[in-house]
């Protein structure tokens, strides 16, 4: 049976589309997009109609940086609860990081994750393989086998690859297999044991700081290695103005580098830590006002390609401890749309740029289907009511991770439908 989504505003930068249109779906794929009101050939009476009047319809969101915690830390999240959180947040595809237990450093773990994702049958899950065996930063993992098992990139996310020679070889090897290397940029000898940004707030609070330069030193190294090896490097969760400058300069030189930023680094500063709320503890840490402004500017001018959540769910037990002992991370999937549409509302991005950053670009960087509504593409799409406001209540999160510094925030923009391969996998209780 066909599905017809009518009455909404369709924004799809992959085909320069922004305006009222009807979307026809057949066999899990986009069949056609027609201008609203135009007669449709072959329109059938048995088509299922989704009324999207006054709603925004966009290609399904692609979140290229999430932690699903499964296998190993199922008390924090499982592939099922993570996938439920994804579709509730309007996300149709996620790429999940390999810091599980056992880590995704060989094919069997990747196959486990893919099987669980298939059983969940909600969001599409694309595993990211480990760069090094056991995420130890020493010997290369079986990157060819990982690719054959289905990984779309490699990363030791959460654990920087400190040995530059290992990183060089990882890039040379991954390039041969056509995989991007996603780098968590942090020089651990500089960030040692810090728990927030090093600056006036850490000074005031008496907390050990993580300096900007801990990130920037590694961004610089990995850009140079990308340039030397010709490998595509994607810089995860960029958080400082200095990193932005390095990436901007590298792109100008033609280095194959892309970058992402999280919603929380775009809207919060280290001032949030004054609350002593351990849900503000995240790595890289929330930075200064100047850094936030530089990140927003970098999104606008294309230096930063992607918004990704770094969804890092934790159990209360990981967070209900002294600030210095608390786990790093924010549960981000279910606030992605609300927080980033706020940037659109404030004029940081226009809607088309927004879709590019949350859907089109991540799909292209990972080389996966999605990010577009062109006929023949999988019918992954997100329908958003941009006029309704809602209050963030972690108790309502599908994710097991209730750790959000945005609790109590009023966000405008609410996901009403999420479709994956033409199936409604999420529908808001209206």
């Amino acid at each position, binding site marked *: 049976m066909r599905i017809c989504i009518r009455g909404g505003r369709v924004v799809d930068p992959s085909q320069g589309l922004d305006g009222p249109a009807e979307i026809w779906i057949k066999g899990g794929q986009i069949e056609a997009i027609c201008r609203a009101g135009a007669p449709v050939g072959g329109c059938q009476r048995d088509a299922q109609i989704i009324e999207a009047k006054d709603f925004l319809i966009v290609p399904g969101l692609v979140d290229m940086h999430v932690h699903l915690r499964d296998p190993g830390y199922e008390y924090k999240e499982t592939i099922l609860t993570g996938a439920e959180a994804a579709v509730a947040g309007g996300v149709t595809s996620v790429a999940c990081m390999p810091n599980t237990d056992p880590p995704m450093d060989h094919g069997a773990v990747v196959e486990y994750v893919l099987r669980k994702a298939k059983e969940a049958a909600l969001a599409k899950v694309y595993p990211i393989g480990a760069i090094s065996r056991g995420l130890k930063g020493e010997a*290369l*993992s079986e990157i*060819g086998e990982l690719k054959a098992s289905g990984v779309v990139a490699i990363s030791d996310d959460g654990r920087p690859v400190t040995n530059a020679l290992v990183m060089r070889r990882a890039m040379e*090897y991954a390039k041969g297999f056509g995989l991007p290397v996603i780098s968590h940029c942090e020089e651990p000898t500089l960030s040692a044991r810090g728990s927030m940004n090093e600056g006036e707030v850490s000074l005031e609070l008496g907390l050990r700081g993580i300096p900007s330069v801990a990130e920037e030193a590694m961004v610089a190294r990995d850009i140079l290695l990308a340039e030397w090896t010709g490998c595509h490097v994607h810089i995860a969760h960029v958080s400082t103005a200095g990193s932005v400058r390095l990436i901007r300069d590298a792109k100008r030189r033609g280095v194959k580098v892309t970058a992402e930023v999280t919603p929380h680094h775009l809207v919060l500063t280290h001032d949030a830590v004054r609350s002593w709320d351990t849900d503000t503890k995240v790595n890289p840490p929330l930075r200064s006002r100047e850094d936030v402004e530089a990140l927003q500017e970098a999104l606008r001018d294309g230096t930063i390609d992607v918004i990704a959540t770094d969804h890092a769910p934790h159990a209360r037990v990981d967070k209900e401890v002294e600030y210095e002992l608390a786990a790093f991370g924010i549960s981000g999937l279910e606030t992605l749309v609300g927080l980033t549409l706020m940037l659109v509302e404030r004029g940081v991005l226009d809607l088309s740029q927004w879709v590019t950053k949350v859907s089109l670009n991540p799909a292209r960087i990972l080389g996966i289907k999605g990010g577009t509504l062109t006929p023949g593409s999988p019918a992954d799409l997100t329908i958003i009511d941009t006029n309704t406001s809602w209050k963030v209540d972690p108790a309502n999160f599908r994710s097991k991770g209730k750790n959000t510094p945005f609790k109590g925030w009023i966000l405008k923009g609410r996901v009403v439908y999420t479709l994956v391969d033409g199936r409604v996998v999420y529908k808001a209780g209206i």
Partner: protein
Amino acid sequence: MSEVAWQKGWWRKDLLSIKELSREEIQMILDTADSFKEISTRDIKKVPTLRGKTVITLFYEPSTRTRTSFEIAAKRLSADTINISVSTSSVVKGETLLDTALNLQAMEPDIIVLRHSAAGAPDMLARALKASVINAGDGFREHPTQALLDMMTVREKKGSLEGLLLAIVGDIAHSRVARSNIYGFKKMGARVRVVGPGTLIPRGIESLGVEVFHDLREGIRGADVVMALRIQRERLEGAFFPSEREYARFFGLSLDVLREMAPNALIMHPGPMNRGVEITPDVADGPGSVILEQVTNGVAVRMAVLYLLAGGTRGEDLH
């Protein structure tokens, strides 16, 4: 250099690299080797060509095949041979390479065959010594007689190297065999590809006029000759590739993968082989494999090189 060789147009005192040779010089060595090959099939495998000449093999790295091949070649030409290897020499007493060589020179040898782990070592000796120096492999740089025997083998099977497509698979970065063959096959008119993981293909190798492939099937598609290189597992595993298993899966020559080659393509390996890693046993022993013929031709090529560098006036006695 011998008078006969000189008349043929051979001017060199030493054989240090394929890079320095002209197409004509390579041709001359291969033609000479072709004519020597028959000697090894005789009942009495000896000619007096180099009678009274002294050949020293000086090996600073372990080797069975190359050292034996040089020794047999020299003996079949009636030269006197002395073999020196690290463990039995004064090297253990701390003597420098140059001092060792000068001492040997004082005993008036005609040819020194040197294998050394340091690139450029043969060139240093060649400059310092009156004797001819043959490079039997220096570091990652060159192994000229290996490339010559490879070219001889292919020429024998295919008639000519002109227009052939050679794919060299494996650890190009640490391979003197790869470098010598790239120079040699290209000079003789063949096209050369190198195939391997990104970690084992030296950056900028395109400047030698080769095409780079990281996918084995694509890399050997249509190849007339596929050469597998030895993987030094003890040195490379973990660092340059994740595991032997993964290497074998993505870069090992197997019967399945070889369907991509041109019909009647040749399989070569400079040895020693890791069966089951860079080459499966059924490929190593299968049709198309000329691995043992390479070894046979190694003797002929080394006879030719010894002859051209030190051949006496008895060259005409050959037949």
